[in-house]
């Protein structure tokens, strides 16, 4: 053994990968009966739960786990100052608070997505085994990414998150819209990867290392060519901006969300986005913390633009999924805002918002999934009177939307916004706070209008949307998301406290 590997540390992604392989094998050898489909889903669920269990164990262990560290004899860097003597050799894979939060978020969202896809797959239009396999691969990437502490691992993990999603999007193979969505997602994503990689290459050139901790050390103090670093930072930020659908790289979001199967849209809006933010935070805060003067103003502008454009576009939508897509773009803007504050502690506000956003957005997607099975075009008008036809679905959606809007009784969203506002105000970014305030109102408008639609009786709907029996799985997904959102509403300190601890070390 050349390297000693801490299998406990890498257990979650490892399990996910193994279960992915298992699912593929099961799919190949089991007969293709309708009964197998949910069985594979349960295997997938089991894998995610097992991974989560290890995550819990890691959290209980309470110490920072690092593995795949640089061998001691190679650790010394050729460039002075990068690797001070006596420092611990940098590790590629680190499990700390930051990792745990993001991995936990991803796995919980993964459970919801799997539950949603059990309904989506029930009809047999999509090959089941491959679907779950790809889903698990994405999850593995998304769990690995926040643990990555070097650029190589980060790039590979980000690609592991993205690439299976392309295939997942296109997996409804005879649906022109799904293919179209996939092609758009694919092109945008690979271009963004290329852009980001160019930035990474410049950073590597300036620092001579790919480890984030070393990068931070190398870029502190006077840098020989600050412009190169600046351009590198800008390119890296641009690359990640694609992933989180920030303006000006947002245009793919609505098209892709609408064309993709709804579970994939949910995945994109939560898991992919979480991965993107994890990467962004890791690179910016951990590695480029010294360059905060460069990227914080950029992020402030990007954040303001993102929330404004997202909200303005969302306001015009008539399609539920498109509205959610643009609204999630706007929410990305809110999540970005604290990062623009030139204080490292502000990161925890972003993380808290992201976690809460995930819960409420998944709740909304679950109900949209329920409705989409009955309403062909899934427009907002199809939701008229939903609260009377199906009180559970209607109330779940209403709560999720109100949460997203950030008003009581959706306290989770409100507190998330308050935290973000607090960071901005304390960081004396007054103008951003005002922009966000205006945006909050715009957002409230369309969320509330949608919510109101749930409670307006449908005037003899031409195609009354009845919720049939869309499967227990989707209900379970909706219930799970709703439960978490309610939990965060009552006890937001769960996420706030945890996030405070993790200074993303």
């Amino acid at each position, binding site marked *: 053994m050349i390297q000693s590997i801490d299998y406990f540390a890498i257990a979650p992604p490892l399990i996910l990968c193994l279960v992915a392989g298992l699912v593929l094998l099961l799919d190949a050898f089991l007969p293709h009966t309708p009964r197998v489909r949910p069985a594979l889903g349960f295997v997938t669920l089991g894998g995610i739960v097992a991974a989560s269990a290890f995550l819990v164990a890691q959290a209980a262990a309470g110490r920072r786990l690092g593995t795949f560290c640089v061998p001691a004899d190679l650790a010394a860097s050729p460039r002075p100052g990068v690797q001070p003597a006596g420092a611990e050799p940098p590790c590629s894979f680190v499990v700390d608070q930051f990792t745990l939060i993001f991995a936990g978020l991803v796995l919980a969202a993964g459970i919801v997505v799997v539950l949603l896809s059990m309904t989506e797959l029930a009809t047999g239009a999509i090959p089941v085994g491959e679907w779950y396999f790809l889903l698990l691969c994405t999850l593995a990437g998304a769990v690995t990414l926040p643990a990555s502490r070097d650029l190589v691992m980060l790039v590979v993990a980000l690609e592991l998150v993205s690439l299976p999603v392309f295939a997942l999007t296109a997996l409804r193979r005879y649906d022109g819209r799904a293919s179209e969505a996939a092609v758009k997602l694919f092109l945008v994503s690979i271009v963004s990867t290329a852009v980001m990689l160019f930035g990474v290459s410049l950073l590597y050139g300036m620092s001579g290392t790919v480890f984030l901790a070393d990068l931070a050390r190398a870029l502190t103090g006077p840098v020989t060519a600050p412009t190169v670093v600046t351009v590198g930072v800008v390119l890296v930020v641009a690359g990640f901006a694609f992933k989180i659908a920030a303006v000006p790289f947002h245009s793919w979001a609505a098209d892709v969300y609408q064309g993709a199967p709804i579970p994939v849209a949910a995945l994109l809006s939560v898991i992919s986005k979480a991965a993107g933010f994890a990467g962004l935070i890791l690179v910016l805060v951990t590695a480029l913390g010294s360059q905060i003067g460069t990227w914080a103003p950029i992020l402030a502008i990007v954040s303001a633009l993102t929330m404004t454009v997202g909200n303005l576009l969302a306001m015009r939508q008539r399609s539920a999924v498109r509205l959610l897509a643009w609204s999630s773009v706007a929410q990305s803007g809110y999540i970005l805002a604290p990062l623009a504050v030139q204080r490292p502690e502000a990161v925890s506000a972003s993380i*808290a918002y992201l976690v809460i956003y995930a819960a409420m957005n998944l709740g909304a997607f679950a109900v949209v999934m329920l409705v989409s099975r009955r309403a062909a075009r899934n427009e907002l008008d199809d939701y008229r009177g939903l609260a*009377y036809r199906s009180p559970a679905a209607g109330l779940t959606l209403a709560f999720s939307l*109100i949460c997203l809007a950030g*008003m*009581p*009784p959706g*306290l989770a969203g*409100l*507190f998330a916004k*308050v*935290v973000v*506002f*607090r960071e901005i*105000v*304390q960081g004396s970014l007054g103008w951003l*706070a*005002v922009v966000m*305030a*205006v945006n*909050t*109102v715009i957002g*409230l*408008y369309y969320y*509330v*209008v949608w919510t*109101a639609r749930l*409670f*307006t*009786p449908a005037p003899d709907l031409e195609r009354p949307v009845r919720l049939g029996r869309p499967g227990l799985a989707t209900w379970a997904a909706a219930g799970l998301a709703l439960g978490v959102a309610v939990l965060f509403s009552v*006890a*937001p*300190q769960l996420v*706030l*406290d945890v*996030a*405070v601890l993790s200074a993303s070390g």
Partner: protein
Amino acid sequence: MSWLLVSLVAVPLAGAAILFAPAMARRGPLRVYGLAVSGLTLALSLLLVATFDYSRSAQPQFEVDREWIPGLGLRFHLGVDGISLPLVVLTALLTFLCFVYLCWGTGREPGQLLAPDSGRPRALVFTLLVLEVGMIGTFVALDLLLFFVFFEVVLIPMYFVIAIWGGAGRRTAAIKFILYTLLGSVVLLLGLLLIWAQTGTLDMVELARAHGAGMARGVQVLAFVAVGIGLAVKTPMWPLHTWLPDAHTEAPTVGSVLLAGVLLKMGTYGFARIAIPILPEGAAAVAPWLGAFAVVGIVYGALACLAQRDLKRMIAYSSIGHMGFVLLGLATLTPTGMNAALFANIAHGLITGLLFFLAGAIKTRYGTAEMPKLGGGMLATLPRLGSVLSYTSYASLGLPGLAGFWGEMLALYSAFQPAPGLPRGLFLAFMAIGGVGALLTAAYFLVMLSRVTHGVPRRRAGASQGAAAAGHPVGVGAHGDQAAEWGDWPWNEARRPVPAGPGSGVSVAEGLGEAKEQREVGGRGEAPVEGRPAAEWPDEEPIDFLAEAGSGDSGTRPEPPRPGPGDLPDIRRYELVAWTPLIVLVLVVGVWPKLLLAVTTPAVQALLGATP
């Protein structure tokens, strides 16, 4: 006793939560249920009144202080002092009365939204209970963020009250309401966060005690402007008021009552509780502006009222004027002014609540609240309703001896002697303008009364003439003169049933005397009138005042549909029950203002104590 405040918030909340139980779907118990929950809340608030220690009303009592969200520094901190106590009771009372209005009676009348066929009674009860949680919570919260949370809790239920149970233009009105108030809330939140960022605490008591220590003047001004805008939207202050007339006009009766009676108070309460004590320097800097806007609001409200034709809209605009007095009182930054503001708050809550009840009753009877169409002569046709309306209007215009007087008087008086540091000349001007506004207020109420309650009931006479002349459907030819005068008549298209035959449109030519006579005789069914109101109330059971209810009319009551001359029922029992407490309180508070002032004065002095 700290459980008292918690239970004040928890009882309606639990009541709302229980509504989710499937068993609550049936309507029978629902009416009793709403009444019971709000009644329990009212009882608790009365218990609060009984056990409140009036000797130290300056301090918050019944305090609860628990940590809620440490990450945000948010504490669950409740307490009640002399300022908030009357408002809490007012809230509980008005909510209870709304439920009385909704739940008593037969439940078939149009104003009673719990009717079996009117859709979603459970949702309405739920909404109102949540509304109550938010309102009471706002008044008892002693943590800035908690205050904000409760402040916001109110919005969504109110939105739904307007948007679902409102009138024809409800969609626009509701959206306007929520957009305005939301924008205000967000600005308010920013202001609160600014205070928080500067002082590091959210505790109102502590902040009020500090009196702005630790905040630079510029910061205070900025925070005061932000918080002030947020609260002023809710109040509403003059340039930010445009949501209010629509919302009040389109909201159902109970919505209007709570909106005017309680929700507007949340804004002024916020000024008294947060903006002025916590940010004294900011308040001193902005107070002249506040006063200016206030008097503009007074005059503007009065002038706008003069131009209104819709009764509800007029009352809504009158609220703007009254809240102008409140703001003027606040702007003086003196204990007298604050007292005036708090007093006017309560008085306005009682009076305007009652006025909206009345307007709702009129609207359900006549199918419109347009004053010209009411035709005048209400004192003749509906003597009880007319007299209560007159009484309330007198109270509202500030007749000495009724509740409305003291607030206005004290506010104007305090403007005579504003706090040191404020430009006295300016405030004297404010006082003068405010005085003019008060006169105008009297003017429009009197105009309204002359249009509605006094005079000959033109409408009926016109109807009979026209109908008799040509056998026209009522309202088309009949009101030719009025149609020319007032433009088209929307309610005609919307609500007038097609008459069955030429005869059905014939109405009695009734003058003032005739109407009285018919009422005395109790002669019903003698002459057909236009069928609209009768069709709306097939089962109406008009009780004439108190004992008259069963005095013999009921025996001879014909079968529905009953085209009688008593086609417009006078005050009914549930309405009477709902209104009597307000009528009494308006008088009591008007006669003994000290009752209220004694409670608020120490608290006001404590809040302003350290002001320079």
